[in-house]
């Protein structure tokens, strides 16, 4: 497959996963605005901004005990993460980037995929924060996440299982792994910052991962942070766990086949296997747990770099006619 096409599809997968992840986080966060204490609301914002490694446009987050003020502040923060044009990680920016990559690669994706994505794009294009805030912002975020899920379903039903599929999935799983590692690190940091442990901080995390019921089934005990983190990192049956995401990305890399440089290919696969090792060990807890998440996060960044150098942007040498000839049909 053309390298630029592969890169476009890979980025499409990454951007849409990013939009989905943020939509789900914001759905939970806006749900909490109705009845959660201001402290929990600020915890949620700290977790989200920490995971994104971003400062709010309005400046640092500060806890205020005034309920109404928490709501006013939340409007600006949600706007920053949803529609702010200068924020490259806002939902609309990610959606636009994902759609733009799809537009450039339309000849590689199915017509059904394009129509599905384009319709969502058209819905988002003209919206502004007041439009969604006056009604039910949580519904807007739920719909947005559901539209991306629908797109994934359409992709699964209609896209031929060639390299186009594998690069979309590779981008999707690598992004998911990296975002999860960041979110879990941000969760630990926010819990430390707010000092008082609260079950709500952990149950909201479990709900983000659709893991609340799974946790309850596996753990009859009350909420235990290390058990929660252990489930989200190492459980290979949980759809969004780090373990399953890394396993899927290793599978996609194996299916893609070698790049032009054997050594670069080996390094890339070896890096993916290294990630598999990291998410496969028993959750260590405490400071070691945080260190493990950091290594996973760094490992994802390195893997992205290696994928780019192996498949998309490799150094071009004068063609070896023998080698080039092997690809001739």
């Amino acid at each position: 497959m053309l390298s630029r096409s592969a890169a476009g599809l890979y980025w499409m997968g990454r951007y849409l996963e990013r939009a989905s992840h943020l939509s789900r986080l914001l759905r939970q966060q806006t749900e909490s605005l109705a009845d959660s204490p201001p402290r929990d609301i600020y915890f949620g914002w700290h977790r989200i901004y920490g995971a994104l490694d971003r400062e709010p446009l309005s400046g640092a987050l500060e806890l205020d005990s005034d309920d109404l003020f928490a709501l006013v502040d939340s409007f600006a923060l949600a706007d920053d993460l949803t529609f702010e044009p200068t924020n490259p990680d806002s939902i609309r920016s990610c959606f636009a980037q994902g759609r733009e990559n799809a537009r450039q690669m339309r000849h590689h994706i199915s017509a059904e995929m394009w129509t599905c994505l384009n319709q969502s794009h058209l819905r988002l294009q003209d919206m502004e924060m007041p439009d969604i805030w006056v009604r039910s912002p949580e519904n807007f975020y739920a719909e947005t996440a559901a539209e991306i899920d629908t797109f994934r379903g359409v992709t699964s039903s209609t896209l031929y299982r060639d390299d186009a599929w594998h690069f979309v999935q590779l981008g999707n799983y690598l992004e998911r792994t990296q975002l999860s590692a960041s979110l879990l690190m941000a969760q630990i940091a926010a819990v430390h910052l707010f000092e008082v442990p609260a079950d709500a901080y952990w149950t909201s995390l479990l709900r983000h991962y659709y893991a609340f019921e799974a946790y309850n089934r596996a753990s009859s005990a009350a909420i235990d942070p290390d058990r929660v983190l252990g489930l989200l990192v190492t459980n290979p049956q949980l759809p969004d766990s780090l373990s399953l995401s890394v396993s899927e990305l290793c599978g996609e890399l194996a299916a893609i086949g070698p790049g032009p440089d054997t050594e670069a290919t080996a390094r890339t696969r070896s890096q993916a296997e290294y990630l598999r090792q990291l998410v496969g060990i028993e959750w260590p807890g405490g400071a070691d747990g945080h260190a493990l998440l950091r290594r996973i996060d760094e490992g994802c960044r390195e893997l992205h770099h290696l994928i780019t150098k192996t498949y998309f942007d490799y150094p071009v040498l004068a063609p070896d006619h023998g080698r080039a000839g092997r690809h001739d049909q």
Partner: protein
Amino acid sequence: MNFDSYDLDPAVFDEMFGADGAPHPHCGDLYDTLGSMSSDDLSAIGEWVTRSFTNEGITFTVYGDDEETERIIPIDSVPRVMSATEWGELTAGLKQRLSALNRFLEDIYGEARIIADGVIPADMVRDCPQYRLEMRGFKAPHGVWVAVCGTDLVRTNDGFRVLEDNLRVPSGVSYMLAIRKATKSAHRLLYRLSRVRDIENYGLILAQTLRELAPEGRSDPTMALLTPGIYNSAFYEHMFLARQIGADLVEGRDLLVEDGYVYMRTTSGLKRVDVIYRRVDDDFLDPLVFRPDSLLGVPGLLHAARLGNVSLVNAPGTGVADDKSVYAFVPDMIRYYLGAEPLIENVETYLCRRPEDLEYTLDNLEHLVVKRVGESGGYGMLIGPHSTAEERNEFAALLRADPADYISQPTLALSRAPCLIEGRLEPRHVDLRPFILTGAETRIVPGAFCRIALRRGSLVVNSSQGGGGKDFWVLDD
């Protein structure tokens, strides 16, 4: 729906009605169907067609001062129809014309016999900005310089005329196919009843044409469509066609030339490319030969093509044959190369480089259409009958300053076809762009991109200037 507000003009050919006011025999089913529909029904079809274009993102890009806009071409839901007999006569003329144009290109970049024999003046060819000295001695595969041609046709009471030959990177075929898909679905009963000839195999025929032009010994060639990229106004079409023909959609940065061969960068390494359907203008194709500042092209591409290691479709340099001045000589080319009379006539053309033609043009500006030879898309032209005195004075000054840069033609009464305008059927001027493909043989799918001048009385059909499109059906006799 009725035709109460549909005014017939005896001076203008109507695609639906004869001079006696009755529908043409092949338009009977369409006439009856429209008569049985309400205005709301037809409007709903129009809205559905537009919505399907919106959802599918069938757009062209318009560039403003500081931002780009993806726009949808306005689509009229009433198809234009033609009988198979009439279409057969038209296709014979189109094939004849393209055959002569290919012979002309092979000749002027070779021995230039047509010039030596005095059929066309040497300066007419060599002063043309689209004449590429660099292509002298180039051997196009099978003598096919132009494999994909989009010929603009208009109809008057005197029959069809060729308005323009588009021989470089003609566009619009994706609209032909997309409009058909939407209109067929919306008018499915009428479509079945009318026995409309199919055009859906255009992609297969284009792919076959490209394969036939592959370098010697490359029986299963690797094909690529070279696009200037996402910012090109026709990017949707490039993507659409790449998908139709199973080719990779490449930009210049995806390709490189080594040892006279063209390769593309794939995830598994470099892969040789055999046929490039290029949608990049000559100027930007190869910075080593044409514009050195081009970032869209591929250094060394022309060298590889000269060696016969890659086929470029269409070949560079074909623009000289669709130049608005050279156009006037196409009937002479047909006589010279094919020994036959043109089956489709040209529009009478005055070359302002000739003093007598300049004088005639200046004396009759209010009746003529004046065109700048290097412009397209409806820009750089004066439509005399619709112009102001100030505009005519401005053009007169331009003509006197650089007469060779202009031609003039009589203002044609382009035929009109019924269109749904604000809930009523009204006539609008139309043209027709069929697509002619030449590889080992010449093939034409029975369809065309039919453009409409949506503004009442307007003759400008270009989509960039408010034009729209409608489906065009060739009906089995």
